[in-house]
C-alpha cells in the first residue's frame, strides 16, 4: 500500500509498504531516515521515539497505515523543529513576533536540510547532550533527545522526578543515566536563561 504523511515538515510518500509494517521501518528503510533506532521492536527501549502529531510514541509500535495524513517529527528534524518553536513562542502578548532579520533567515536556508538534519545548528537539547557528555555509543540518544525535547516544551523547569518520569521509557546501556540527567538539567537551565 501507499502511505502519505508529513515527516519533519515535508510531505512524504512511501510506496509498496507492507500492511503490517511499522512506522519505524518506513522511516528507516523506505525514507532513508536512520536516526530513529531499532533495538527491541517491542516498545521497551524507546530508541525509536518520534513525535506523532506532537506526541512522543514508539515508532516501532505504530502501524505504517496509521500515519496516513499525519505529522511525524524524527530526530533528524529536531533542530529545525526546535528553531521554529522558538520563533513562534514567547509571543503571547503579540508584542514580539518574528524580527525582519529572523524572517529573512527563515526564507533562505539552502544549506539546511530538515530531512537529514545536516547544515542545521543543533537544537538546545542536542547541544546540551554533547556538552554534558551524555552520549557514549549514541544508540539511545535519538530517542532520548526527542523525549527530552518534548518534556522541556511542556515543562520548562522540570524537577529531577519530572525528568526521570519523562525519560522512563528510554533505556541506555552505556551512561548510567547521570550524564543524561545532567544534559536535560543543562538544557532546562539554558532555556531559563534565554527567557
Amino acid at each position, binding site marked *: 500500500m501507499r502511505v502519505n504523511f508529513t515527516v519533519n515538515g515535508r510531505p512524504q510518500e512511501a510506496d509498496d509498504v507492507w500492511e*503490517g509494517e511499522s512506522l519505524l521501518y518506513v522511516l528507516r528503510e523506505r525514507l532513508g531516515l536512520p536516526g530513529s533506532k531499532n533495538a527491541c521492536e*517491542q516498545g521497551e527501549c524507546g530508541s525509536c521515539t518520534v513525535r506523532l502529531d506532537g506526541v*512522543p*510514541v514508539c515508532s516501532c509500535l505504530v*502501524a505504517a*497505515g*496509521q500515519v496516513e495524513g499525519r505529522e511525524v517529527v524524527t530526530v533528524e528534524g529536531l533542530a529545525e523543529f526546535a528553531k521554529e518553536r522558538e520563533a513562534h513562542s514567547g509571543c503571547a502578548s503579540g508584542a514580539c513576533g518574528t524580527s525582519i532579520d529572523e524572517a529573512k533567515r527563515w526564507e533562505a536556508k539552502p544549506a539546511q536540510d530538515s530531512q537529514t538534519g545536516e547544515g542545521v545548528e543543533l537544537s538546545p537539547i542536542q547541544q546540551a547532550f554533547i556538552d554534558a557528555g551524555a552520549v557514549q555509543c549514541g544508540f539511545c540518544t535519538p530517542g532520548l533527545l526527542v523525549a527530552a525535547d518534548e518534556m522541556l516544551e511542556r515543562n520548562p523547569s522540570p524537577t529531577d522526578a519530572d525528568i526521570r518520569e519523562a525519560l522512563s*521509557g528510554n533505556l541506555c546501556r552505556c551512561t548510567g543515566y547521570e550524564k543524561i540527567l545532567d544534559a536535560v538539567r543543562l538544557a532546562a537551565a539554558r532555556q531559563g536563561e534565554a527567557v
Partner: protein
Amino acid sequence: MDFLRPASWEEALAAKAEHPTAVPIAGGTDVMVEINFDHRRPEYLLDLNRIELLREWEVGEANVRLGASVPYTQIMENLRTELPGLALASHTVASPQIRNRGGVGGNLGTASPAGDAHPALLAAGAEVEVESVRGNRFIPIDEFYTGVKRNALQPDELIKTVHIKKADGPQQYSKVGTRNAMVIAVCAFGLALHPETRTVRTGIGSAAPTPIRAKEAEAFLNAALEEGGFWDNGKIITPSIAKQFADLCSAAANPIDDVRGTAKYRRHAVGIMARRQLGWTWEQYRGAGRTLEGAA
C-alpha cells in the same frame, strides 16, 4: 494482509461484520509487538485511529463514558478526580510513549490477567459497551473476562465505550514489580470505597487466570463495617477486621508460578496490598471524605 481504514464508527462496524477475523488496532502497543515478532499475521488489520468518538470521554451524572481509545495519558491528566483508581493504574502502565498510545479498549481487547486497567475497573464498577451491525449491548465488567486472554466479545463486535462509575469515595491501586517503569505486574490490587452504597469493591490482577474481584472479602468487610457502624462513626477499622479482609483477598487469588513470581509470593503480596489500601482509603474517608460530626 489488508489494512482497513474506516473513517467512521459505522464503517468500522461494517468492516468488522464483513471480516470478522480482522484484528482491530488502536494504540497498537499489543498488536504491533505480535506482528513485529511474527506471532500474528492477521489477514486484515482494522485501524481505529480515525474514529473520533473512540477518543472522546464524557463525565455524566453517575458515570464516566470513556471512549475505547482514550490513551492512558489523557486518563491520568483529565480524569483523576472522577476515576482515581483508573488514573493511578494508568500511571503504572509502561512508559510515557506507551501511555500516549495505549488505552483501556486495547487492554480489554487483550484481556491479559496482568492488564492494569482491569483491577481498577472491577473495583470502581463498570460496564463495557460493545457494538456490532446487529446492535449494541452492555457487558458488566465482572462478566467481561472469560479466560486467559479471552473476553466476551463476539467476532463481529467492537468495544465502543467503557461506562465507569464515578468515584463516590477514595480509591487506590498498586502493583508489585521490580521497578517503577515498564513493569508487567507480578500482581496488582485495586480497591474502591463506595460510601453512597456503603460497599467496598476490589480488583485483583495477575493472580488468577482472569482479573477477578475478591467477592468474599468484600462481603465480609461490608458486613463488618455495617455492623460496627464504621461508615457513620468513622472509627479506625480494627486490625482484626483488616487482617481478615486481607486474608480473604489472598484466598481469592488463584495464582501460578511463573518467571515473574511464585504463586505463594503473589498470594502473600495481594494480602499486603489489600490491607494497606484499606488503611489508606479509610484514612482518606475519615479525613476529607466525610464530616465527622460528633465523632470522637
